[in-house]
């Protein structure tokens, strides 16, 4: 009996250790956010005083409202929503179509194509920044360009410049293929016998069956795109009307140099992360699936 008792002591210690660890971790995760939310509530005087006041005595809740009146927050938010929604829709469409073809048809070159899709995931984004910028700039016949791509500004300074480069993802195609693989062929063959065309089968039979897959990819793309900074910044530097929330806040940093506007900046940052948090709280289980599908492959 002594052994059993000893063991249960050990496991009790393990439990304490476990929760201590998780709690410390959670504190480190949350404290910086708390620091920002507190910062947004400080008055300029509290910031200037030496040393600055840490816990605001007179919390300036109004700062969270000023964000909407003094900054183009609604414009940024609208842009973020529009761009994110468009990219998500486009990626879902292209990924579902390509993933379906790769999973459910036997055609010449399919295996090579699939292997290319896997291989293409290895190409990091930084490799594409310069060339895609100029491809969009000199895209023939758009944005005032002539057939040789001269004269106008191409897709630059339009939403298309932010959206188009993200219209396909190799990972999304791979992921959708995995989901379509699980759809039984019998269902589709039965529909073929009923005389349904291939597009009808895709849209009315296969797609509804992979809705969880679409949700998974959708939340993935949503989170990624809402937080995208480098590309959006590169193409909207000169088009304030098209900037998304994070890019707008970063590029407007010249307006946040004095202490009276620092709180405003912190409030704006707080507002910028709210939509993702809300979306995520509802849809997080789909996110798990997308990540683990990738891991299984490895």
């Amino acid at each position: 009996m002594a052994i059993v008792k000893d063991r249960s002591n050990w496991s009790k210690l393990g439990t304490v250790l476990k929760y201590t660890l998780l709690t410390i971790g959670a504190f480190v995760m949350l404290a910086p956010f708390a620091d920002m939310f507190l910062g947004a509530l400080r008055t300029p005087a509290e910031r200037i005083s030496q040393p600055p006041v840490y816990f605001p005595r007179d919390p300036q809740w109004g700062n969270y409202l000023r964000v909407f009146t003094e900054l183009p927050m609604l414009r940024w938010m609208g842009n973020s929503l529009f761009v994110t929604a468009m990219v998500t829709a486009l990626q879902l469409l292209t990924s579902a179509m390509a993933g379906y073809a790769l999973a459910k048809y036997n055609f010449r070159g399919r295996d090579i194509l699939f292997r290319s899709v896997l291989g293409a995931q290895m190409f990091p984004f930084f490799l594409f920044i310069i060339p895609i910028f100029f491809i969009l700039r000199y895209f023939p016949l758009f944005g005032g360009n002539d057939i040789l791509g001269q004269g106008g500004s191409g897709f630059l300074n339009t939403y298309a410049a932010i959206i188009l480069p993200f219209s396909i993802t190799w990972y999304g195609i791979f992921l959708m293929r995995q989901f379509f693989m699980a759809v039984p062929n019998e269902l589709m063959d039965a529909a073929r016998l009923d005389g349904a065309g291939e597009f009808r089968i895709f849209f009315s039979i296969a797609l509804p069956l992979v809705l969880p897959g679409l949700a998974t990819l959708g939340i993935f793309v949503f989170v990624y795109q809402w937080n995208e900074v480098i590309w959006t910044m590169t193409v909207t530097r000169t088009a304030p009307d098209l900037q998304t929330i994070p890019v707008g806040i970063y590029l407007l940093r010249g307006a946040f140099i004095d202490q009276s506007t620092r709180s405003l900046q912190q409030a704006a940052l707080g507002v910028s992360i709210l939509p993702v948090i809300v979306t995520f709280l509802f849809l997080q289980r789909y996110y798990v699936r997308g990540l683990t599908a990738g891991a299984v492959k490895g």
Partner: protein
Amino acid sequence: MTDTSPTASEQMLSAAREDLIDQEPPRRSLAARLSSKAVAPWIFITPMLLFGAVFFILPLLYAFFISLTRWNSLSAPKWVGFKHYEYLLTTDPVFWQTFWNTMYFAAASIGIGVPLAMVLAYAFTRSKGRTVWRSIYWLPMITNVVAVAYIWKFVLDDRYGLLNRALGFLGLGAPGWLTDPNLALTSVVLIFVWMQLGHNMLLFSAGLASIDESYYEAARLDGANERQCFFRITVPLLMPTTLFVLITNFISGLSYFTLMLVLTDGNGGPLRSTTVTALYMYKMAFEDLRMGRASAVAYLLFAVILVITLI
């Protein structure tokens, strides 16, 4: 299945067909042919091929061409062959500095981040209230990088930041987290680990879920304690996941630069200590308009990543 209205794609196709084809083939047969098993897959992958050609293959070739020229993008490019590659590899001291910064960043972020994520995931999968823990640990991962950078700028401020105030309260010294050139990159690594922790924990907890509980039960019957369970069962059985996490983290670490850019106002300072190669490329291209040399930097870094991936 009795719905007879044509689908959207069929409508589009028949409209397109009217423009392109003479009246000869009967309507139904062409629609049927396009929607046959032989042709349909090609239509399904057309968007992928089209976008793939314009936004993947073309850019790769174009970037390579640019890397062989001297081009400020305002006047015509000048052909220089492999001069940029030669310059970067043999003459440019900055390139190699950024290269080692990059390696340090990628290696340190997996060295610190992966074990931490593994241990926390282990604790997490065997605890109560998982939804709450998960939501907390995921918060940084879904936060945009601009917010992350500014949050930490305030926390890490030398004199009045939360961290150094806390250290001062404990009677400890105050490191210059972001102002000391010897420390700044490590601070960036720590912030990056903080950002990525939820993501890696998630992967590990999925891996842990696939380990059969019977292993642990058997071990406990043999009198193994928690620590032994972790090192004797969890760590070895988790190997495939660990490898996957290590490799993907290392590769994404090598190409990462957004945090450094935003955190340092695009400087990559102090003293270039946080300038990783990808940031060096970005600044070279869009600040100094050296498109050719910057493209060469991109290709060199990619070559390194490729070699590491293949190993």
